């Protein structure tokens, strides 16, 4: 239809141009007219083409509020990652990054050949950005990715602080879907705060915080506890859920303190906590401050011998290095139970882990499998919605997001993923508690399965 309009308009233009009425002194005006008409025709032609001409983008793109990503012939499909790959928390993000890289490598293949897989004849390329494990880092990284209109979707962020109100908003405003392998902060999928383009394959800390409280009250038998968070949505969320559940079990929360990231002297806050006499100290924070608090708690009168507990932000050998092995000895750390995955466990143990170890060494943290699942979810959804037209590929953004949220019964490594409307794709998880022994996390000493609905 568009072509017909263009041809008709062109013929009319031709008639205007050759009209016998226009000659001599009106030459100038005629030129102007012709120029104006040309513009009109071009615009009309474009509109017509957009209305479904055979050479324009498919209908799915024009009806999509965010349009399509057009991948030209021979061009790669670009996806981004936004993980913490520098600073003291780098091992957390690099572990996920390796999960993403391996997933891209394995996609559409049956082995790890070092070359990324393809979707409908197009290579998949990764642009890796850093989330800095902070709102500032998340802003910078997300803006960089959002400025690239070829980015289809992003795997990230590592830290909830980099996503909440930051990356989830910046990328979501551009219609770029963001799926996180390790954001566990409850606020991110809280219906009041959830952003429409945000999902995660990591567990929700409503479950982890409760598991830690059960572990402390039932397993260790402590009746009083204190918490420290660092103001990040991750730490604050965990500390609050823990305090709530611990109190409901019948325990007493003696102090709920907060510290500043980047600070080094926690003696005042620890002395203040010691004055309230807790039997258990929970500080679900990150590597640098977590290491210092571990050291300094050991030297604070009243806290030398009490049970210390951290969570997955500290679940890396880097934290043991930062704390010093002798200080970390005996500390409890919670995280996803890698031995209780309900997905393709054989693949995880016999194919994934050997390939990971061969390429990158032993895993530095515990979210590589979640990153693998997040990447595969994204690639599957791209494959599902991408429209081939000529040599190009068109990926409608909203349709891609909808396909991600429609994920149901998706068998990954970590389990079977079912995404709900709030972006939580992990409905049932098993959280484990490890105890540091001889400078290593060792096997879980406590494990608890729970589901989001219940």
């Amino acid at each position: 239809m568009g072509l017909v309009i263009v041809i008709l308009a062109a013929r009319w233009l031709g008639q205007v141009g050759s009209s016998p009425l226009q000659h001599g002194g009106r030459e100038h005006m005629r030129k102007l007219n012709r120029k104006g008409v040309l513009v009109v025709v071009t615009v009309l032609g474009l509109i017509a083409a957009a209305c479904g001409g055979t050479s324009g983008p498919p209908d799915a793109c024009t009806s999509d509020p965010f349009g399509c990503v057009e991948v030209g012939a021979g061009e790669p499909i670009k996806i981004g990652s936004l993980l913490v790959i520098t600073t003291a928390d780098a091992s957390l993000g690099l572990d996920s990054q390796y999960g993403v890289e391996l997933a891209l490598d394995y996609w559409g293949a049956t082995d790890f050949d070092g070359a990324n897989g393809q979707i409908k004849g197009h290579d998949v390329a990764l642009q890796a950005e850093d989330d800095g494990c902070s709102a500032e880092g998340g802003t910078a990284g997300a803006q960089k990715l959002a400025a690239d209109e070829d980015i289809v979707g992003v795997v990230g962020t590592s830290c909830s602080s980099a996503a909440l109100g930051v990356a989830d908003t910046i990328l979501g405003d551009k219609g770029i879907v963001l799926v996180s392998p390790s954001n566990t902060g409850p606020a991110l999928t809280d219906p009041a705060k959830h952003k429409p383009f945000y999902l995660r394959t990591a567990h929700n800390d409503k479950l982890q915080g409760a598991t830690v409280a059960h572990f402390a009250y039932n397993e260790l038998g402590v009746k009083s506890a204190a918490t420290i968070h660092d103001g990040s949505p991750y730490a604050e969320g965990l500390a609050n859920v823990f305090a709530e559940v611990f109190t409901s079990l019948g325990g007493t929360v003696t102090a709920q303190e907060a510290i500043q990231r980047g600070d080094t002297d926690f003696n005042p806050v620890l002395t203040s906590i010691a004055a309230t006499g807790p039997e258990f100290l929970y500080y679900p924070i990150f590597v640098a401050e977590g290491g210092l608090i571990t050291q300094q708690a050991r030297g604070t009168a009243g806290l030398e011998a009490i049970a210390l507990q951290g969570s997955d932000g500290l679940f890396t050998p880097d934290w043991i290095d930062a704390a010093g092995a002798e200080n970390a000895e005996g500390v409890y750390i919670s995280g996803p139970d890698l031995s209780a995955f309900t997905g393709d466990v054989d693949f995880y143990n016999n194919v994934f882990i050997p390939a990971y170890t061969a390429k990158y060494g032993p895993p530095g943290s515990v979210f590589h499998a979640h990153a693998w699942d997040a990447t595969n979810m994204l690639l599957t959804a791209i494959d599902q919605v991408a429209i081939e037209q000529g040599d190009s590929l068109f990926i409608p953004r909203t349709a891609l997001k909808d396909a991600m949220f429609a994920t149901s019964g998706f068998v990954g490594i970590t389990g079977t993923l079912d995404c709900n409307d709030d972006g939580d794709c992990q409905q049932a998880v098993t959280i484990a508690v490890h105890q540091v022994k001889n400078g290593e996390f060792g096997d879980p000493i406590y494990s608890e399965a729970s589901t989001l609905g219940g």
Partner: protein
Amino acid sequence: MTAAPTPMVRGLSTRLARLPIRRISLIALGIAIIYGVVAGTTATLRTGKFDTHDWVNFLVQGIARGSVYALIALGYTLVYGILLMINFAHGEVFMAGSFTAFFVASALAGHGFLDRQPIISFVILLLVSVATSVTVALLLERLAYRPLRGAPRLVPLITAIGASLFLQYTFRGLYGEQAQAYPEIDAFQGTVQIAGFPVTKEQLIVIVGALILWLALYLFIERTRTGRAMRAVGEDRQIAALMGIDVDRTIRITFAVGGALAGAAGILYVLLFNQVNFTMGFIPGLKAFTAAVLGGIGSITGAALGGLILGVLEAVGPTLFLTGTGIPSAFQLTPIVSFGILVLVLIFLPGGLLGAPEEKRA
């Protein structure tokens, strides 16, 4: 400050600025801060949550960390006193020594030498840290600052910020981005009783060490020929040069002395905090700069005093002023407490506690 009155040309904004309103609002702010401090303190003391023992404990912690700030602040104040320039890369000079000595410390610990010969090990670490910091400080002066000596004052300032980032990422490239825990020296663990109050040996070493270094610096500046040359260059560079003082050499020495103090501070710091990484210099550097301003930048005694006050404020402040008021997360507000007091001091003493009168600076 008393310019000739020329009401005809004086603009409205100038006239507004000269109205006592500005002064009055500053004083009102000062009174508000004082009121907050007094009210908070009373409330906290009334809760009786902490006993004398705890307060002494906070105080000692504050003096210990303040001693480290003071040592770093001396580097800022020395350079400012002579070049009228803020060396914002000084925190990285501190980091360089501390981080480098970590590798020596872990090697010594790995071979058991650290615990068998704690004193010798400590001296070795101190020497390594000081040597590294001095080298970095001298390179900084030679490569980044000397070529800009005649430039407007803003130019070396921006260069210093650039140098700070450059050094951070150079050391990240060299040593990696992980935080590392210093091995603990067993002989320095434990507490000693001073007037009935337990003080950890590490805190004692830090406080005494800082005191000795400050005293040595004071004598060096006041009693030696080189110290006198430094003071002369600080007073007037041209005249000093005319008097036969080698200005370049004097400035080099200033950077070397500042670097040496930062290197020593780096080792004392890890006795307290046991952790190093490539960004560790930034916050202590900022705090030390604050301490130098608080004490009166350019003044050696002022830097020491400013460091101690800031350290004590940080350790005692949030607990004393805030816990009684029931404010949640009092310890997250540490910077507000310490910088609030800084504002208070600068309202009443714009030149800092022991600073030169205002017209001499500028």
